[in-house]
C-alpha cells in the first residue's frame, strides 16, 4: 500500500546532488545567528533571549527587527564594557546581576537563553557554566540555557539551529512513539500542519520549539522527527544523539514539497494511499491553482540566489519545478547534504551550486548573468535594483508564512511581486 504514496519524479536530465559545488570564501553579506532571536522570541512566549555581547549586537537586533516594532521585546543585550573585558570573574558576577535585574522585571519569563556573541566567544566567557549556575540560582521558576549566535560561528538562520540544539539535551525522556516536528513555524502554519497529520491519523505530534516550556515535547528512541527548515543541522545531530530518527524529505515548500514531506511521514506511520489522497487531494489542488495564478509572471524567467537564509536550495527547487523558472546560480551559506539532499535530487541539473560567499565576485557573476530575478539580502537589494536587476529580499522569506499547501501561492507571490511591480510602474510621459 505504502508504495502508492506519491513520490516526486526526479528530473529527466538528473538532479544537482552530484553537481560540483563552487566553494567560496571572502566577504559575506549575511547576518549572524543572533538575528534568529527576532522570530524565536515571538514563537516561545515564556522565553527571554539575553545576548551577552557588544553595542554592535544590540544595534544589529534593533536594526534587523526594524526600529522598535515590538512594544517591549523579550530580548535584550548585556553590553560588555571596558571593565568586563579586564576581569572575567567580574564579568560572571556582572552577568548574575543583570540576569537578576531582568528576571525581577519580567516575572513571566520561564526560560532564559544566554546567547553568546562574537566578543563573548573571543574573550571566552563560559556561558554554559553561567547557565548552569543561574539555573540553580533561579530554580524552579526559570530554566537557563545557552547557545552561540555569534557571527564567527553562525550564519543567520543557524542561530535558530543553535537555539533548538541547546534545548534537545534538556527535553524529557519518553518511550512513546511520537512524531516530533522541528523548526519554528508561524502559528497559522503549525495549525495547518497539525490538522493535516491528524486527519491522516498520525500522532501524537510534538513541536520543537513549543510555545511554552510546560508543553509535552519529549524525546526518546521511538521518536521520529521531521525538519521543517533546512538549516537545522546541529539540532538534527543532537536529536540523533538522543536516539531519535530523522525522516529525510524535501522541505514542505510548494505543493510538491509539501506532498513529499507529508508522504515521508505517512510512509513511516503506515498511512494508506487512499487516506493520504483523501486528506491531501483538495489542498493539493488548491495549492496548484494558487501557484499557477501567482507564478504566471515567473514562467520562463531566470533566478539567481545569493546565500542568505539557507532556504535557497528548497526554494530553487520550488521555483524551477512548480513555477517554471530557470535557476542560474543557487548560493547557500553552507550545504548540509543530509538535510537538503532530497531537494538537490529534485532540482534539475544546470545551475551553479555555490557555497559560502565572496560577495564582490558573486556580484560580478550576477551582473554578467543578468537574471530576471535576484534573491538577496537587504544590503544588496536596493543597489542591485538601481542597476536594473529585479530583486526579492530574502529575509521576507523567513518572516512570512510560506510552508505547506495553503501558503504555496503566497510563496510564489513573494517572488512574482517584484516582477509585477516593475511592469506596473510607468513614469514616462504618455507620449
Amino acid at each position, binding site marked *: 500500500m505504502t508504495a502508492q504514496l506519491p513520490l516526486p519524479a526526479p528530473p529527466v536530465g538528473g538532479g544537482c546532488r552530484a553537481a560540483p559545488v563552487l566553494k567560496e570564501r571572502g566577504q559575506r553579506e*549575511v547576518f549572524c545567528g543572533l538575528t534568529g532571536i527576532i522570530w524565536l522570541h515571538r514563537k516561545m512566549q515564556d522565553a527571554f533571549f539575553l545576548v551577552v555581547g*557588544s*553595542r*554592535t549586537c544590540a544595534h544589529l537586533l534593533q536594526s534587523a527587527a526594524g526600529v522598535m516594532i515590538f512594544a517591549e521585546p523579550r530580548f535584550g543585550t548585556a553590553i560588555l564594557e571596558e571593565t568586563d573585558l579586564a576581569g572575567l570573574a567580574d564579568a560572571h558576577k556582572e552577568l548574575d546581576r543583570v540576569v537578576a535585574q531582568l528576571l525581577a522585571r519580567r516575572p513571566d519569563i520561564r526560560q532564559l537563553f544566554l546567547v553568546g556573541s562574537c566578543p563573548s566567544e573571543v574573550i571566552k566567557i563560559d556561558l554554559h557554566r553561567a547557565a548552569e549556575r543561574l539555573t540553580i540560582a533561579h530554580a524552579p521558576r526559570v530554566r537557563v540555557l545557552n547557545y552561540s549566535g555569534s557571527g564567527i560561528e553562525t550564519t543567520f538562520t543557524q542561530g535558530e539551529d543553535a537555539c533548538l540544539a541547546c534545548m534537545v539535551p534538556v527535553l524529557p525522556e519518553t518511550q512513546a512513539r511520537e512524531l516530533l516536528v522541528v523548526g519554528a513555524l508561524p502559528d497559522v502554519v503549525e495549525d495547518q500542519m497539525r490538522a493535516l497529520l491528524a486527519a491522516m491519523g498520525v500522532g501524537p505530534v510534538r513541536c520543537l520549539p513549543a510555545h511554552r516550556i510546560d508543553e509535552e515535547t519529549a524525546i526518546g528512541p521511538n521518536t521520529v522527527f521531521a525538519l521543517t527548515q533546512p538549516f537545522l543541522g546541529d539540532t538534527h545531530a543532537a536529536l540523533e544523539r538522543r536516539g531519535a530518527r530523522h525522516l529525510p524529505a524535501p522541505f514542505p515548500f510548494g505543493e510538491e514539497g509539501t506532498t513529499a514531506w507529508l508522504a515521508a511521514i505517512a510512509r513511516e506511520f503506515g498511512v494508506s494511499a487512499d487516506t493520504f489522497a483523501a486528506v491531501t487531494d483538495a489542498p493539493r489542488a488548491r495549492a496548484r491553482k494558487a501557484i499557477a495564478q501567482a507564478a504566471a509572471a515567473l514562467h520562463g524567467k531566470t533566478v539567481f540566489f545569493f546565500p542568505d537564509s539557507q532556504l535557497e536550495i528548497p526554494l530553487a527547487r520550488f521555483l524551477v519545478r512548480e513555477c517554471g523558472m530557470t535557476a542560474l546560480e543557487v548560493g547557500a551559506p553552507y550545504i548540509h547534504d543530509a538535510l537538503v539532499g532530497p531537494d538537490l535530487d529534485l532540482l534539475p541539473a544546470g545551475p551553479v551550486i555555490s557555497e559560502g560567499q565572496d560577495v564582490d565576485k558573486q556580484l560580478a557573476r550576477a551582473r554578467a548573468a543578468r537574471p530576471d530575478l535576484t534573491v538577496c539580502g537587504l*544590503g544588496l537589494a536596493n543597489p542591485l535594483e538601481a542597476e536594473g536587476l529585479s530583486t526579492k529580499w530574502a529575509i521576507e522569506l523567513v518572516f512570512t508564512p510560506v510552508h505547506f499547501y495553503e501558503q504555496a501561492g503566497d510563496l510564489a507571490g513573494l517572488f512574482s511581486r517584484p516582477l509585477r511591480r516593475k511592469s506596473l510602474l510607468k513614469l514616462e510621459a504618455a507620449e
Partner: protein
Amino acid sequence: MKLTVWTYEGPPHVGAMRVATAMKGLHYVLHAPQGDTYADLLFTMIERRNHRPPVTYTTFQARDLGADTALLFKEACRDAVERFAPQAIIVGASCTAELIQDDPAGLAETMGLSIPVIPLELPSYQRKENYGADETFLQIVRHLSRPQNRTARVTCNILGATALGFRHRDDVEEITGLLSDLGVEVNVVAPLGATPADIARLPAAHFNVLLYPETAEAAARWLEKTHGQPWTKTVPLGVGATRDFIAEVQAITGLAATADEGRLRQPWWSRSVDSTYLTGKRVFLFGDGTHVIAAARIARDEMGFEVAGLGCYNREMARPVRALAKAMGLEALITDDYLEVEAAIAALAPEMILGTQMERHIGKRLGIPCAVISAPVHVQDFPARYSPQMGFEGANVIFDTWIHPLVMGLEEHLLTMFRDDFEFHDEAGASHHGGSAPRRPAADVPRDISGQKMDAPEPAVVAVATADNIVWLGDAERELKKIPFFVRGKARRNTESYAAAKGLSQISIDTLYEAKAHYAR
C-alpha cells in the same frame, strides 16, 4: 555590563561608516566578523541608498582565529584598493576585531599602498556612534587637508552632514541657499558628497559652518587651530537661531547682505489665531543634544509651549543640555537607557513629546502625541520631498511637523463639549489621522489613578493614594474623566500638586476646580 533593550546609538564603527558612506572616492576596510555586514542595510534600506556602502569587511570566522586573521585583513585591504580604486582608505576594527588586536592601522601602513591610509582608533567598549563619526571625520581632515591660500571670494565649508543623518541632505541645501543670500559661496560640503580631494581643499575656505556638532565639532576645532578658520557656533534650527546664525555669519564675513525671508511663514502661522490652542502645551524633549537645545528654544519662544522636561542621549552634550535645563528651571535627563526615558515621560505626563523614533513608540504606548526631532532615524525620516529642519524653510517644516500629531484647535473644543459622543470622543484621536477610531464601550470601566482597571464595583472613596499620599475621591475622579485625555494628565498633576501644597489628604470636586482656578492662565 549594561542591560539594554533598545539603543539610541550604534557602535563607533557605524559612525565611521556614516562618514565613509557620505563621501565619494573613499573606502573603509573594516576588520570585522561575519554578520557585521548588517550595517549595510541601515544605508540601503533605511536611507534607500542605491549603492552599497563603500565598506569591505574582512569577515573572519572562528576557524580563522587560530590561523592568520592579520593576513585576511591585508588581503581584504589589497583587494579593496584594487577593485574600488579609492583616492584614500580608512582602516579600523569593529568591536570583535578590537579584541583580537591585529592592529589594522599598522598592517595597512606596512603594505606600501600608493594612496593615503587613514587609521582609526575607535574604542568600541567605551564610545558610541556619534563619537565614531566625529573622530573619523577628524582623522580624515587631519590626514588629507593641505595648507593653502584662501579663495578670492568669501567662501565657507559646511561641516557635519553624514549618511543616515536626520534630514542632513535637505539641511545642506537650505543652508547653502541661505549662505548664498549672505554673499557666501560654499567651498566644500563635508563629509556629505565630498571626495578626499575635496577634503584637501578645506583650508581654502574663509570659515566653517558647523551644522552638526555631534559629527564634526572635533574637525571644526582642529581646522580653527591648524588653519585659522573660525566656525559658527549657532546651529540654524528655528527662526530665532537662524537669525542669530545670519548675524554670526555677517560678523565673520563683514558682509552686509541679508537673507530673503519671503518664504518664512512660521512666525505668522504661529501668531495666527488658529494657533492659540498651542499656548502652554506641556512638551517633553529628548534626542541628540544639538536638536534638543534648538528645539527647546523653538518650543518656548516660537510655539508658545511650556517645556516640561528635556534631555539627551549623547553624554558628549551633557554639559550644555544640563545648563539649558537649569536655565529653564528643570533637571536634564542625560541617559541612553530607553526605559529611563519612558519612566520620565510617564511621570511628567506631558501633552506632547518631541523626541526620536524611540519616543514615538513611548508616546504610542502612553497615548501621548509625538513628533520626531532627532536621530536615531527610521525609514520615515527620509521623505521623498524636500523637508529640511534648518533655516527658514526648516522653521516652516518644523511648525507643520510639530502640530501634526496634535488634535486641532476647534476639534479640541468640540471634544471638550461633546466628549461623550460615542463616535466623536477623545480616545478616537485627531480626526486628520488615519487609522481606527475605536467606538467607546457603553459604560466606562472604573480605573484607579494609575490607569489600572478596578475589579470591584466603584467604592464611595477611591482608596488609591498618590505619591504624596493624597486620595482622589470617587466623584472627583469621575469629574477628572470628563476632561479630554490630552489635557487630563496636566489636570491630574496640577490638582495633585495643588493639594500637596495645601496639605490636603483628599481631592474632591472642589479641590479639582480650585486647582484649575489656581493654575488658570
